[in-house]
């Protein structure tokens, strides 16, 4: 064991408990955000299926994205067949 050491060099913080992704918010690098207009939505649920982060939820023509995790990729807006999702500049 190193004698001159003042702090632990053990690999703490390298592993985390399982299922902790929900607590670890990863939406910080978004520059645009999806706006669900709830206007022409036809309940096709394409947005739910194409979102690479799996963060679109909802039913009955009312869909929304969990903004703690949305990366702002815009795929949902691009793929929505009735253009019911707009991408807006994220202002912080």
């Amino acid at each position, binding site marked *: *064991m*190193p*004698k*001159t*050491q003042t*702090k*632990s*060099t*053990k*690999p*703490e*913080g*390298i*592993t*985390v*408990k*399982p299922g*902790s992704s929900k607590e*670890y918010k*990863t939406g*910080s690098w978004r520059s645009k955000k999806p706006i669900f207009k709830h206007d022409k939505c036809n309940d096709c649920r394409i947005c739910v299926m194409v979102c690479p982060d799996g963060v679109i939820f909802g039913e009955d023509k009312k869909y929304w994205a969990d903004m703690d995790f949305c990366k702002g990729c815009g795929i949902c807006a691009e793929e929505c067949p009735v253009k019911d999702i707009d991408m807006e500049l994220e202002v912080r």
Partner: protein
Amino acid sequence: MKKVIEGSMAVALAVKACRPHVISAYPITPQTHIVENLSQMVADGELKSEFVNVESEFSAASVILGASATGARAYSTTTAQGLLLMTEVLFNIAGLRLPVSLTCANRAISAPINIWCDHQDAMTVRDSGWIQLYAEDCQEAADMQLQAFKIGENPEIMLPVMVNMDGFILTHAFEPIELLDQKMADEYLPPYKPEIFLTTKNPVTFGILAEPQYYAESRYRLEEAIKASKPVIEEAASEFKRIFGRYSGGLVDKYKLDGAKTALVGMGSVVGTMREVVDEMNSHGQKSGLLKIRTYRPFPKEAIYDALKDVDNIIVMEKAISLGLGGILLNELKSIFQGKKKQPRISGFIIGLGGRDIPTQSIINAVKKVESETIEDEFIDLRTELIGAGK
């Protein structure tokens, strides 16, 4: 018991003595005999390891990463292009703090294709977070294998260790080797028992995303750990000596440096040739010594400074180059003397690239050259007719 065996066999037997749970490697010259011997031992039932055949070095490195994460002692071996193909995984293994071990049978990097020895492969991944040890002979390569797991698995260190041995020059050399007794090896290297590993009983996640608020601390701890391995490397060598009776590890090895005016510095098998030159110089009254760098990462700055602080003339001979800068070891060594009162003259030569033979006379000529001037990054023994010079 001493036996005349090939360097590759000496390493394979040393790996066997470490009782690895998992071995995964892809055959590549000049490492081939090491894997062949190991797979034969597993096939013959002499070695109770899982030998995982893979289709590339990338997979071999990934297999030992995964195996180590489950708490297994894991080993691989490769060289040159194979090591470069592993590169991404090598960084991950170190970042995940997995104490696997790998023998690199040092070989030149393409292009042009060349299967012979130099140190460009391992030197290129020097910033990966792996501890790098360099063997001078086959005995050291074998002994350092046992020490590699001992160092890496220290709970305060938890880092992968690469043992470097010169391709062909050592891997294919037959030497009398003191074989490692299994009982002594077991005493030296107890079973690997990590504090954290993958198990369904106590699930953990390895390799999480670290956003800007976490990443730097993770890298800081990695740097602290590899620096903290210096005394651990020394202790592993002393403990090895206590059990096996020979010293074949540590940070640096000093030879005739007391009172020396000139010091040669090198790594790997060329050190043997350099030692002969030092002996000859001393017999002619030129007070000279030799510093062998055994541990290249962590870079043993303090030990190197301590060994060389009183000499007037330092000559670094290295088998690798940072293209566009020059000698890697030369520049790192120079940095040690930055701001120090006494400034020795530090010269550097690039030698033995792609397996070019290094006769003692070439080293003597180089030493003569720097008597009057400092020389940096000169290639030794270049064939002038091939570089369009001297016409």
